[in-house]
């Protein structure tokens, strides 16, 4: 398949979104929404896997060529669909704003721009025409795009299949799939976009899809609040992203990524203050979308959305877009001395911070949400390094995480589905016989999350840590700070298996005990009635029929097996191909190949053994406290009541933000409102009063509204005369 076919990928999903939108009109039509969406995403996947590889640069033995030192124009291909914002050519001007006077000046000016042409224009001298701002629906395909398309469309198809079962019978079935289709459109546009503005379009539209899906159960006030919070916190990040785009355009005169990267990596390039700031602005966007400190607060709340959404958007794909963006624009980050260290530090600290919160949450989905924040921190740590192995690790972790975290969310969706919305791990125990498949599937996910040796998570996380220590222990110019971050990563590697298995042992092991939830299939809409009495009746009815947790349907289990295989084996199978992909992408065009540490130090082996031991220890600790001897766990918790309270309340970050930012702004709004009302009131009074006063002076016998007009006209004429006199002076 020709590479130009990829331009259809986003639009297939947009078409699907439109069809689903039409299907919303009749509830009976709604059932068709799932097949339409699944077909669309699967078709995108097929097109991506068949068409995109043919556009990649390969070396003589058919492998993807290494990107080091190559131009972005060579390692990838640009495919244009349609114009979006594509301005006319414009005149380039000299630094003082004047057109070039001589041919030399014109030539010098033309050299500073991409594809400039010089026109001789008679007596006016020369004019240099350069392309105007151009940001089109135009796609850039390189190995990184291919990797991301694999994740987005691949996991997307599986989750959509699962969603077809999970959302069955829901009133908003078609609405759900319409939003999922919009999401795939936005996400594919984002990972394929060849310019920053299209990237921004995808960036904001995934935010929209996320907003619509978090707020899917729109009757729940908590869902509405969570949706709003997600959108607004993301907008704060997007502000930085937008400003970053402006600054990039100011610096490079283009927003096309391949051109920007080509200029940024050229040997003649001299970094200036703008290069210093661009990555920090872009980073703000990444922190918002990928839920890193200080903008992570929206992600845990986002769990209000249906579980398939949590799996697809808030674990596997959308939240990784920050990681993608940093990898894609890595050379820009390298041009600023402190940008990458900042990314790495934020990542490392977030990984640890979120993991501590995850250890003491009781809501199954919340645990995984904080876990996602933590794992994204690992990815940031990886792409925040200047060494290849770490960048590879960050992106490889993106892939493996997509598998195991989607699996974990979907299995917890099974639990939720089977127990009518019960997610509190204190109220569930020993479900292994009632939900056997879910139990063992989730175990696969937990093992991979815990980075148990030979699972997928093991390889990717180790790659990150090896990269971090490589830079920290480098032979020349070692940076001890990275050693600290690496150790932090290892500590987090102990917390991760602990919280993952804490949940699993609680829910599936131990004595069989459960309290059913109050929602049917995690959805109150199915029996939503305006009055409480009705829904209560239906609830009781429902309970009478099946008051035991039940296993999910095959439609829901089938995609989980695929994900489980991925979570267990993608580390072994995917290691080589992904490394090839990452090393052929724009992420490493200016990152050297040679190792920073001496060859006789086998860092990889040391880290692998260490983290294997740490993971096992974490699992054993969880097993002791939460399976074998729960009383001991309880005793320990009682003794540590203080710290645990801090963790349970998530360090009160939400409350602090509310007090420090939201409340003062709102107060300011009230004050301004008051000022404005007074201003209106005052002016109205003035208008009523001033003419009257003047009227009294001019013609005391009359009053009324009408001559107010006359007087203001008179006043106007007087001012006019005054003005003319003043101006003519």
């Amino acid at each position, binding site marked *: 398949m020709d590479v130009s076919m990829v331009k259809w990928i986003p639009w297939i999903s947009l078409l699907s979104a439109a069809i689903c939108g039409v299907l*919303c009109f009749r509830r009976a039509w709604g059932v068709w929404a799932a097949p339409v969406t699944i077909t669309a995403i699967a078709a995108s996947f097929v097109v991506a896997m068949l068409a995109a590889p043919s556009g990649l640069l390969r070396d003589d033995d058919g492998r993807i060529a290494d990107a080091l030192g190559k131009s972005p124009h060579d390692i990838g291909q640009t495919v244009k669909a349609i*114009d*979006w*914002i*594509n*301005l*006319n050519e*414009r*005149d380039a*001007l000299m630094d*003082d*704003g004047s057109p070039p006077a001589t041919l030399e000046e014109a030539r010098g000016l033309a050299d500073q721009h991409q594809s400039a042409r010089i026109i001789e224009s008679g007596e006016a001298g020369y004019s240099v025409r350069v392309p*105007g*701002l151009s940001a089109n629906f135009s796609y850039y395909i390189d190995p990184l795009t291919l990797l991301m398309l694999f994740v987005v469309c691949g996991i997307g198809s599986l989750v959509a299949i699962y969603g077809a079962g999970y959302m069955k019978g829901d009133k908003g079935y078609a609405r759900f799939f319409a939003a999922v289709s919009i999401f795939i459109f936005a996400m594919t546009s984002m990972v394929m976009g060849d310019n920053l*503005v299209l990237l921004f*379009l995808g960036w904001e*539209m995934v935010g*929209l899809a996320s907003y619509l899906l978090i707020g899917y159960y*729109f*009757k729940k006030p908590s869902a*509405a609040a969570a*949706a*709003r919070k997600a*959108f607004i916190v993301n*907008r*704060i990040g*997007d*502000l930085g992203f*937008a*400003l970053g*785009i*402006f600054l990039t*355009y100011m610096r490079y005169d283009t927003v096309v990524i391949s051109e920007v990267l080509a200029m940024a990596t050229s040997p003649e390039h001299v970094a200036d203050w703008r290069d210093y700031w661009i990555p920090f602005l872009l980073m703000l966007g990444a922190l918002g979308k990928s839920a890193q400190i200080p903008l992570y607060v929206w992600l845990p709340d986002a769990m209000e959305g249906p579980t398939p959404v949590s799996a697809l958007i808030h674990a596997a794909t959308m939240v990784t877009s920050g990681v993608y963006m940093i990898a894609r624009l890595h050379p820009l980050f390298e041009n600023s001395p402190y940008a990458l260290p900042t990314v790495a530090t934020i990542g490392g600290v977030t990984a640890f911070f979120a993991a501590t919160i995850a250890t003491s949450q009781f809501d199954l989905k919340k645990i995984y949400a904080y876990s996602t924040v933590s794992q994204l921190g690992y990815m940031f740590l990886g792409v925040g390094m200047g060494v290849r192995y770490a960048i590879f690790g960050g992106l490889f972790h993106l892939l493996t995480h997509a598998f195991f975290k989607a699996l974990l969310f979907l299995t917890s969706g099974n639990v939720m589905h089977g127990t009518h919305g019960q997610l509190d791990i204190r109220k569930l125990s020993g479900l292994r016989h009632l939900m056997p498949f879910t139990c063992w599937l989730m175990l696969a996910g937990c093992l991979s999350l815990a980075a148990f040796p030979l699972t997928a998570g093991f390889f990717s996380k180790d790659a990150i840590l090896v990269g971090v220590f490589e830079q920290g222990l480098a032979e020349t110019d070692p940076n001890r700070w990275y050693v600290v971050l690496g150790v932090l990563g290892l500590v987090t590697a102990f917390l991760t298996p602990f919280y993952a298995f804490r949940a699993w042992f609680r829910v599936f092991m131990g004595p069989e005990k459960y309290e059913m939830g109050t929602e049917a299939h995690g959805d109150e809409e199915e029996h939503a009635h*305006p009055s409480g009495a009705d829904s209560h009746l239906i609830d009781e009815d429902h309970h009478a029929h099946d008051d035991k947790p039940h296993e999910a349907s095959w439609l829901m289990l089938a995609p989980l097996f695929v994900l489980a295989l991925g979570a267990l084996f993608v580390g072994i199978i995917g290691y080589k191909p992904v490394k090839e992909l990452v090393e052929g992408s724009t992420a490493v065009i200016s990152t050297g190949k040679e190792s920073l540490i001496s060859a006789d130090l086998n860092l990889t082996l040391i880290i692998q053994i260490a983290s294997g031991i740490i993971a096992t220890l974490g699992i054993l600790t969880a097993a002791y406290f939460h399976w074998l001897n729960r009383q001991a766990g309880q005793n320990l918790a009682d003794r540590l009541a203080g710290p645990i309270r801090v963790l349970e309340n998530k360090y009160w970050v939400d409350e602090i933000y509310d007090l420090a930012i939201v409340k003062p*702004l*709102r107060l*300011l*709004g*009230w004050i*301004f*409102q008051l000022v*404005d009302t007074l*201003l*209106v009131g005052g*002016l*109205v009074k003035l*208008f009523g009063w001033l003419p009257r006063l003047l009227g009294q002076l001019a013609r005391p016998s009359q009053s009324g*509204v009408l001559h*107010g*007009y006359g007087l*203001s*006209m008179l006043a*106007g*004429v007087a*001012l*006019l005369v005054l*003005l*003319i006199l003043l*101006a*003519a002076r």
Partner: protein
Amino acid sequence: MNAPTLMALLIILPALSAVLIWTCAHRSGLAWAWSMISTTLIFALSLVLFVWSWRTGADGERLINSAGDFFHTQGVAWVDNLGLRFSMGMDSITMWLVMLTTFLMPLVVLGSRSAVESRHREFFGWLMLLQAAMIGTFIARDLIFFYVCFEFTLIPLFFLIGVFGSTDRLKAARVFFLYTFTGSMLTFAGLLYVAWYSAGITGSWTFDIATLTESAQTMSTSQQGMVLLALLAGFAVKVPLFPVHTWLPLAHTEAPTAGSVILAGVLLKLGTYGLIRFALPMVPEAAVDFAPYIGVFAVIGILYTALICWVQKDIKKLIAYSSVSHLGFCVLGIFAIAGNQHLGQSGAVLYMVNHGLATGALFLCVGMIYERFHTREMRQYGGIAAVMPVWSFFFVFFCLASVGLPGLNGFVGEFLTTMGTFLSRETLGIGYAVAAAFGMILGAIYILYMVGKIIFGPLKLPESNGHGPDDQHGHHAKPRDLNSREITTLVPLAAACLFLGLYPTPMLRSLDRSVEQLVEPARQVLVERSRNDEHADTALVQIDARKLEEGTDR
């Protein structure tokens, strides 16, 4: 039929139908039907002009490439010895704004089918007259003709608000009228001064805008400053720019839906149109000098009103304040004068059209639920999505267009104006853009806050107060969702928002040359100045060098 006739028809037809409606349409339905037909016809006529300008021109020229007026006519003489003529012209800026007006009008009329209960003749008559005045303002190429149309827009709206508004209508109408009228008197003074000045140097009176623009540029800096202040007095009130925006929330809240839509959709743009058509090219030096100060007011307006929006309780008031915030971007874009690009100004024109579509549509949506529940208080609503999904869809859609979601139309204008501001280091620069960008966050906050209150949450409906058709069943009855007439009103707007969001390139390209021409004088000012600075610099360097030499000699 030729283009000048068509242009004249765009003004004459609505005026004529106003007269017809007043005199003949005695049955209530007739006035509506008549205005429906006439507005549709006018839209069709403008569409003919539009397509015409796009395909061919006099000598194979196309609108997209033409810098000045594409269609132009000297018109008929008005007052010969003063040089007054009914001259008309359309460049691409005018073309798009006229299209916006003629596109909105049939939808407004369609949406107002059940809005008024009595005095139909007056209502639709004034609407028609308003249309004539608005189109006249855009296509007039004679200063007095422009000013007459500009001022004449006040009268129909005064009556639309004062007669058909809600409870506080009289106060609102009076404030609106006096406020804008006083401002535009000063503008008139400024424009007259320009004409007088021009007559002084050319020797004969003329009110041709192109001629005046050219001669006005020769005014001294202080003269230009005075004229710019005078122009701002009227145009800034109209936009409205902080701090003279206070008439707008009142007028919007009290106006009937049709009035609000036209006010937000078109009338506010008369102000920005005036700024870009007159302020920039006529007094370029003053525009460059004042740009930083005007920019400060625009930025304050963006942030200040956005915060006010957040605490509003009245839906219509919130949208009204949001207009002030949005038009701040527009003004910022207009004054983002830079040497090497005019993204800000192009973006501003785009913004005018986009804001007209999205905010006009939002007002129509609000009108639709107002007709059902007779309240605009946000806290009386909740979870409407459950009972009115179609309305909710449109409302959310237009809200998203309004907050500038990429892919819908609002984004392009907002992006370009902010980018233009960011890049215009000669006048505004990065600080302004950063501050304005915070407005984008606040925009999302207040709009989503409103959506959250009305659309999301548990179902809550206001108790009807005894007028609507719903309340014979009591307020528990499910309110009817949009009917096909209402959907027909909103669909074209949604389609336009989507189209301009995904494919704005033709519009941007067509605007390019016209905008460039209007910005050119200001750009020249910048070039002159930077040359002078350079000379000054070299002079200084020479002096320094001489001093140094003297020092070594000694």
